C-alpha cells in the first residue's frame, strides 16, 4: 500500500507579492506607523498608557485575570470599543511624534494595491517598511513578533503542496487530467519565469510591472478564486477554477461536507411500508438491497471448509469480496472465484450477501430517541420497499405516506452483539419515559379486538378456522355454543394457559381466569396505548412471547376487521331529523345562556370571579358556556348514534378519530379560538365589517354553528381560518423551539452514564448525580 503522504516544495517568486488574505493586516500596519521612521504614531507615554489595554485584548485568559482585574477587567464589548478608539486615534494623527514628518494618506485598493497619496507602493517597498517596524511596537499592536514578523505577509516564496493534495487522474482515453490547483501552480510558474527572463534581458519597467501585476493576480486567485474585485480565473472550458478557499468553503467544502457530514458504507435507504406477517423484530429487505449489502464472515481453522463452500457459491447468497490477512480487498467474479478460493486461509474475511436472519439496524430521522435506532432481523422479500410491523411504527414515529428509513449492517462482531443484546424491539417494548408499552396495537387491530371479544360476538366454525389459521393456531376453543364459538374463547387461545388478569376502569371490568377471557371486551386500554395486558405479558412471559402475541393478534384481528368491513363514508355523518332538531336545540340553549350572562352584566348583576374584573368575568363565563356546547353535543351524539355507525365505532373504541371530529362533522364546529381566546382583532370593535361594533354575540366572536357536512358560511369560514392559522403557527413554533432545546440537552449530556454503583458520571468519571435520577429507578424495569 502506498504510505508516503507526499512532501511539500516551494517556488521562489522573482518579485514579492502581497498575500491577499492578509492585505487588511498590512493596511492597518501601514496606517499605524510612520512612513519615514516606521515607528508607531504615538508618543512613548501614550504607548505605555495603552499597553495594558492591548494586553487584555490579545492576552490569554490567565494573563487577563492576573493583570486586568486590578485595572478593572474589560468585557469583550469594552475591549472592542477600546481597540476601535485606538485605531481611530492612530488614523487621525497628522504628524509623527518621533520624527515630526507630516503623515500621508494610505489607500488600499482591493484586494492588494496600496497607494500613498496616489503613488503606488510596490510590494517590495511595503516589505521593507514592514521589516523596519520594531518588535516592541508590534507587541503593542497585538502581534507576537517571535511568532510572526509582518514582512512575512508579503510573499517571496510560495508553498507548493505535494501531488497527494492535487492528484492527476488518467481518463479512460489515456489522457491525463490535472487538478485545478496544479493548473494554477503552472500558471504562477509560467509568469514567474517570464518575469525572470524579462528582468534579466533588461526589459522596460512598464513591461516588468505588467508581469508583476499578473503574478500578483495569479497568486491571489491561487488562494481564493472568489476574491472580491478580482476577475475569476477560468478553465479552458470557462469553468471557474476551484482553488484553495473553494475547497474549504461552504456546504460542499471540506468542513461541512467531509468533516461534519460523514458518509457511511454498508447502508441502504428506501421507502417503508407495512407488513402484517412480520414480527416487530423483523424487517423486510428488498432482494436488490440484500444482494448489494454484505456481512463479514471470519475464516478460522475451525470453519475453513464450511466457509470455502459458501465462497464457492455462484448464486444469490454469494460471497462478493475477500479481504486477505494483509487487508487487501479482492472482488469475487466468475473469472476470479477459482483463483481466490485457493488463497482462503484462517484470518481472511469473506463478505457475504445479506440473508434471512442477519441483524441489521433500522433508523428513522429525526433520531430523538434511543428507540429511533433499533436492531431488526432480516427477512428477504420481493419488492422495493423495506417492510416493518405496524406496531414498531410508534417508537420510530413513522407512517407509510412515503416515509423513508435507513438500514445499516453492523460489521464488527462487537457491533453485531451490541445490536442483538441491547437494541432489539422485542426487548424494548417498555418505554424509557414511563415504563408503559411503546409497541402496541392500533387502528384496525383495535377495532378488530373489539369486534372479536364483545359480548355478543359468535363465529361459525368456518369463520373461526380462518381467523385461527391466519394466526397460526390449529385448534378450536373447547366450548361450542349452538355450533358457534364465542369471540372471547377464540381470543383466549392466544393467551398463556395460566394467565390470571383483572382490569377495572370505570364501569367496565375485564377478567381473565386460567388463560380464559371470562368477562369484558378487550379494549385499547389492554392492548392499545398504555396496554396493561401487553405490559403484563412482557413482564411475566417475556419478550419472545409478547412479540409472538403481537403478531398473532395482528393477524387475527385484521381478519376480523376485514370480515366485518370496517370503513366509513359520508352516509355515516348524515343526520336524522331528530339529530338536526337536537342540534338546533343545543345551539339555541347555549345562545340563551350567553344572552342571560350578557344581560346580567349589563344590569351590573354579574358577580366577578376572584382576581378578575367584571368585563373579564363576562368573557370568561361566555367562553365557558360556548365550550360547553361541544360537550353537550358530544353527549347527545354518543347517545343517539350507535356503534353500528363505523365512524362512531372507531371513535368510541379509540381506534381512529374521536367524537369531537364527529361533532364537528355532523353537528357544528363550535367556538374558534385565537391565542386561547375568542377572536377579537381585525376592524375596530369587530372582526369583520359585516358585524356592528362591539357586538359580543357568539357568531360575531367566532362561534361556528355550521358543520363540515353542511359547509361553512363565509363569515364562519373566516373565523375558522383565523383559528386554524393560529394553531398552525403556534404548532410549528413550539416544535422548532422544543426540538432545539432537546438537541442542546442531548449534546450536553451525551456521554453521561450510570455507573455500577448507580451514580451518574461523565466521560472523565466526574460525579453528576450520586444516584441516577435521585431514586435509582429504571422505568423500564419497574414492576407493580
Amino acid at each position, binding site marked *: 500500500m502506498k504510505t508516503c503522504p507526499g512532501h511539500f516544495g516551494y517556488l521562489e517568486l522573482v518579485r514579492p507579492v502581497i498575500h491577499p488574505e492578509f492585505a487588511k493586516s498590512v493596511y492597518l500596519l501601514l496606517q499605524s506607523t510612520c512612513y519615514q521612521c516606521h515607528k508607531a504614531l504615538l508618543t512613548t507615554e501614550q504607548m505605555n498608557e495603552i499597553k495594558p489595554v492591548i494586553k487584555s485584548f490579545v492576552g490569554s485568559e490567565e494573563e487577563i485575570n492576573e493583570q486586568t482585574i486590578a485595572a478593572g477587567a474589560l468585557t469583550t464589548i469594552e475591549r472592542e470599543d477600546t481597540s476601535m478608539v485606538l485605531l481611530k486615534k492612530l488614523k487621525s494623527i497628522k504628524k509623527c511624534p518621533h520624527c515630526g514628518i507630516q503623515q500621508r494618506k494610505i489607500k488600499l485598493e482591493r484586494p492588494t494595491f496600496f497607494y500613498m497619496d496616489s503613488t503606488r507602493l510596490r510590494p517590495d517597498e511595503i516589505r521593507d517598511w514592514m521589516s523596519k517596524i520594531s518588535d516592541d511596537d508590534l507587541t503593542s499592536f497585538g502581534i507576537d513578533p517571535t511568532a510572526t514578523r509582518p514582512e512575512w505577509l508579503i510573499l517571496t516564496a510560495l508553498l507548493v503542496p505535494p501531488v497527494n493534495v492535487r492528484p492527476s487522474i488518467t481518463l479512460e482515453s489515456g489522457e491525463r487530467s490535472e487538478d485545478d490547483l496544479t493548473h494554477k501552480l503552472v500558471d504562477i510558474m509560467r509568469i514567474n519565469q517570464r518575469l525572470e527572463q524579462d528582468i534579466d534581458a533588461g526589459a522596460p519597467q512598464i513591461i516588468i510591472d505588467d508581469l508583476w501585476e499578473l503574478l500578483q493576480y495569479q497568486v491571489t486567485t491561487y488562494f481564493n478564486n472568489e476574491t472580491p474585485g478580482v476577475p475569476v480565473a477560468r478553465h479552458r472550458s470557462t469553468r471557474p477554477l476551484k482553488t484553495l478557499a473553494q475547497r474549504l468553503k461552504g456546504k460542499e467544502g471540506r468542513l461541512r461536507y467531509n468533516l461534519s457530514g460523514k458518509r457511511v458504507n454498508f447502508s441502504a435507504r428506501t421507502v417503508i411500508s407495512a407488513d402484517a406477517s412480520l414480527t416487530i423484530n423483523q424487517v423486510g429487505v428488498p432482494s436488490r438491497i440484500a444482494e448489494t449489502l454484505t456481512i463479514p464472515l471470519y475464516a478460522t481453522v475451525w470453519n475453513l471448509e464450511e466457509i470455502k463452500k459458501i465462497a464457492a457459491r455462484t448464486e444469490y447468497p454469494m460471497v462478493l469480496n475477500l479481504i486477505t490477512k494483509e487487508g487487501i480487498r479482492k472482488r469475487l467474479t466468475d473469472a476470479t472465484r477459482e483463483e481466490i478460493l485457493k488463497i482462503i486461509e484462517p484470518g481472511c474475511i469473506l463478505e457475504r450477501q445479506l440473508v434471512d436472519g442477519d441483524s441489521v439496524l433500522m433508523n428513522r430521522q429525526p433520531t430523538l430517541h434511543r428507540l429511533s435506532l433499533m436492531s431488526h432481523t432480516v427477512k428477504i422479500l420481493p419488492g422495493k420497499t423495506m417492510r416493518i410491523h405496524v406496531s414498531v411504527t410508534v417508537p420510530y414515529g413513522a407512517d407509510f405516506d412515503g416515509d423513508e428509513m435507513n438500514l445499516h449492517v453492523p460489521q464488527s462482531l462487537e457491533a453485531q452483539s451490541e445490536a442483538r443484546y441491547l437494541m432489539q424491539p422485542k426487548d424494548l417494548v417498555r418505554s424509557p419515559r414511563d415504563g408503559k408499552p411503546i409497541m402496541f396495537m392500533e387502528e384496525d387491530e383495535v377495532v378488530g379486538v373489539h369486534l372479536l371479544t364483545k359480548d355478543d360476538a359468535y363465529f361459525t366454525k368456518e369463520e373461526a378456522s380462518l381467523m385461527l389459521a391466519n394466526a397460526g393456531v390449529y385448534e378450536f376453543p373447547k366450548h361450542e355454543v349452538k355450533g358457534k364459538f364465542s369471540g372471547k374463547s377464540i381470543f383466549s387461545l392466544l393467551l398463556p394457559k395460566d394467565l390470571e388478569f383483572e382490569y377495572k376502569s370505570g364501569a367496565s371490568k375485564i377478567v381473565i381466569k386460567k388463560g380464559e377471557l371470562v368477562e369484558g371486551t378487550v379494549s385499547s386500554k389492554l392492548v392499545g396505548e398504555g396496554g396493561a395486558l401487553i405490559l403484563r405479558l412482557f413482564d411475566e412471559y417475556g419478550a419472545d412471547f409478547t412479540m409472538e402475541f403481537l403478531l398473532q393478534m395482528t393477524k387475527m384481528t385484521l381478519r376480523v376487521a376485514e370480515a366485518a368491513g370496517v370503513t366509513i363514508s359520508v352516509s355515516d355523518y348524515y343526520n336524522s331529523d331528530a339529530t338536526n332538531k337536537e342540534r338546533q336545540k343545543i345551539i339555541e340553549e347555549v345562545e340563551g345562556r350567553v344572552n342571560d350572562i350578557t344581560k346580567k352584566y349589563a344590569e351590573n348583576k354579574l358577580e366577578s370571579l376572584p382576581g378578575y374584573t367584571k368585563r373579564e368575568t363576562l368573557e370568561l363565563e361566555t367562553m365557558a358556556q360556548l365550550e360547553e356546547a361541544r360537550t353537550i353535543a358530544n353527549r347527545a351524539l354518543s347517545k343517539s348514534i350507535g356503534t353500528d355507525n363505523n365512524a362512531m365505532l372507531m371513535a368510541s373504541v379509540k381506534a381512529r378519530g374521536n367524537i369531537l371530529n364527529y361533532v364537528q362533522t355532523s353537528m357544528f364546529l363550535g367556538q374558534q379560538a385565537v391565542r386561547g381566546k375568542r377572536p377579537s382583532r381585525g376592524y375596530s370593535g369587530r372582526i369583520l365589517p359585516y358585524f356592528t361594533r362591539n357586538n359580543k354575540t357568539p357568531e360575531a366572536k367566532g362561534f361556528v354553528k355550521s358543520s363540515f357536512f353542511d359547509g361553512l358560511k363565509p363569515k364562519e369560514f373566516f373565523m375558522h381560518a383565523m383559528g386554524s392559522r393560529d394553531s398552525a403557527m403556534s404548532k410549528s413554533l413550539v416544535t422548532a423551539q422544543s426540538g432545539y432545546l432537546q438537541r442542546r440537552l442531548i449534546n450536553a449530556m451525551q456521554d453521561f452514564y450510570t455507573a455500577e454503583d448507580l451514580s451518574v458520571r461523565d466521560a472523565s468519571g466526574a460525579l453528576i448525580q*450520586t444516584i441516577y435520577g*435521585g431514586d435509582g429507578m429504571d422505568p423500564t424495569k419497574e414492576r407493580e
Partner: protein
Amino acid sequence: MVPPLELIPEHSILSESEAKKVMAKFSIPAKKFPKILDTDPQAKLLGAKPGNMIAISRKDPSGGKYTYYRIVVKG
C-alpha cells in the same frame, strides 16, 4: 445571611475525614465532584471555605431521601 427556608434542602459541612470517606466511596478526587461557590447563600450561612465538602440531603418526590455532595470553590 439567609434564613433557612423549607424549600431549600438541608446543607451541612462534612468534616475532613467524612469528606475523605465520600471521595473514597465514589473513588474520585475532590475536583471531580460538583461545585458550589463560597459566595452561595447556603455556603455563606455555613461559613464554608474553599476545599470544604458540603452534603445536601434532598427529598425527592419519587424516591425518598438521597444525599448530594458539592465541593466549595472560590467565587
